């Protein structure tokens, strides 16, 4: 079902953990839907110097968090904002169609963490260019909208 890359990131997650004094924190998902992702950022001079994640979710959710944090580490906030769920999925050598929403979670988690940082620093939060419809399980669904 999963690519080797997904399994590698699932078995050996990069950047797993918590930053206690994080500059930005983003949490997305909903335990009722079986997925929660929390992203912690340390930002120095507009650059993400450290990033950690905590994830409650499936293999794809864990692997997406791991890969996404890898991809934004060392990037400027602007660059990190541009990392799309598709890019995460591609870097993982693909995800099963029914698991694409798990990578959306990673993109949204990063966006939330960045905006958390921006708000804390008195900056205008950026707006989602292509807001995902929160259809975390591939269907229209109220209970799982976060």
């Amino acid at each position, binding site marked *: 079902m999963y690519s080797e890359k997904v399994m590698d990131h699932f078995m050996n*997650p990069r950047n797993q953990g918590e930053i206690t004094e994080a500059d930005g924190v983003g949490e997305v998902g909903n335990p009722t839907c079986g997925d*929660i992702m929390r992203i912690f950022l340390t930002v120095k001079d507009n650059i993400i110097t450290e990033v950690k994640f905590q994830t*409650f979710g499936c293999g794809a959710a864990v692997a997406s968090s791991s890969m996404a944090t890898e991809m934004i580490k060392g990037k400027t906030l602007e660059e990190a904002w541009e990392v799309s769920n598709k890019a995460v999925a591609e870097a993982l050598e693909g995800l099963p169609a*029914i698991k694409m929403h798990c990578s959306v979670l990673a993109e949204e988690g990063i966006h939330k963490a960045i905006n958390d940082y921006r708000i804390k620093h008195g900056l205008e939060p950026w707006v989602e260019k292509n807001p995902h419809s929160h259809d975390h399980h591939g*269907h229209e669904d109220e209970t799982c909208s976060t």
Partner: protein
Amino acid sequence: MTAERIVYMDHSATTATDPAVVDAMIPWFSKGYGNPSSLYRIARESKTAVEKARSQVATALGAQPDEIYFTSGGTEADNWAIKGIAFANRKKGNHIITSAIEHHAVLHTCEYLEKQGFSVTYLPVDETGQVRISDLKDAITDQTILVTIMFANNEIGTIEPIAEIGKICRERGVYFHTDAVQAIGNVAIDVVAMQIDLLSLSAHKFYGPKGIGALYIRKSVRIDNLLHGGGQEKRKRAGTENIPGIVGLGLAIERAIARMDEQNKRVSALRDRMLDGILKNIPNTRLNGHPKERLPGNLNVSFDFIEGESMLLLLDHFGICASTGSACTSGSLEPSHVLLATGLPAETAHGSLRLTLGAENTDEDVDYVLEQLQKVVIRLREMSPLYADHKKRSCNV
């Protein structure tokens, strides 16, 4: 990523075909291949083999051979029983009663019938997964033509009060079908004493081959055909008979019944030891299903703060085969409808793990699973934001 060791604890999903059963099937592929509908010798031999298997199945259920019809599995048997009764008895009434925790083969068939104008009552279950007899009594109306309630549940292993249900249905003149796919070989069944009118079974759940099952239909039950065509199975189920499959089913059920008591004792002892170990070693864990009235090999536990699919992936890495009620493996929105029906919050249902033990499991398997499972749960909890919150809450008290 290869595990040295494979521990199969998913016997409710399917079982390995018993090698003795395979051996009994082999001659019917390339040697005794005659079509039982023909009249020459090799065809008569096939026919005899089919009839022997029919007797074996009948004996296992306390039925008569001519009340047994072979199908392609449990799904077809469930579809046939429910649709067949519904369409044949439409003039008598259009109401069907089932439970909220049936297998999809029953639930989706009932939903299909709702679209065809039938009305279906889905009885709730208590927190152990049992239907309440008083609910059933209240639900039966003069429009009710069928009650279909499973013998034992495939996820939580709960055994339903079948004899009581049978009694009420017979008294009220309503047909009673039970999906006994999980029960065969695990629970003693007597269709006469239990007043069962129709019963579904599937060979691959009791060490028989996949793709073959049977429907018991009590004599005089009014039922339509599901598959139309040739005159096989006394004109009730068309299609060239799957002789090797039928022979395999017959032997598998005979063997399952013969070893039932001894195996149940052994397997339930293993299961109980595993449960004790889990509850003792892993905090924030609960047993799902009935504490006593459950299938001997079934263990269903929920681990707070973690999700089932990732548990399965890690367990697989260590060679352990298990299953979960998490939505993430189902491809659908909702976690297990069975766990939700017992009142479990969705969050907890996502963290459920089903381990179903069977013939080949040993004491060493239990030790191994206990050891690996504890590591897996710790590892996943360490990456879980829910567990982080929980720890903080506990420290701040």
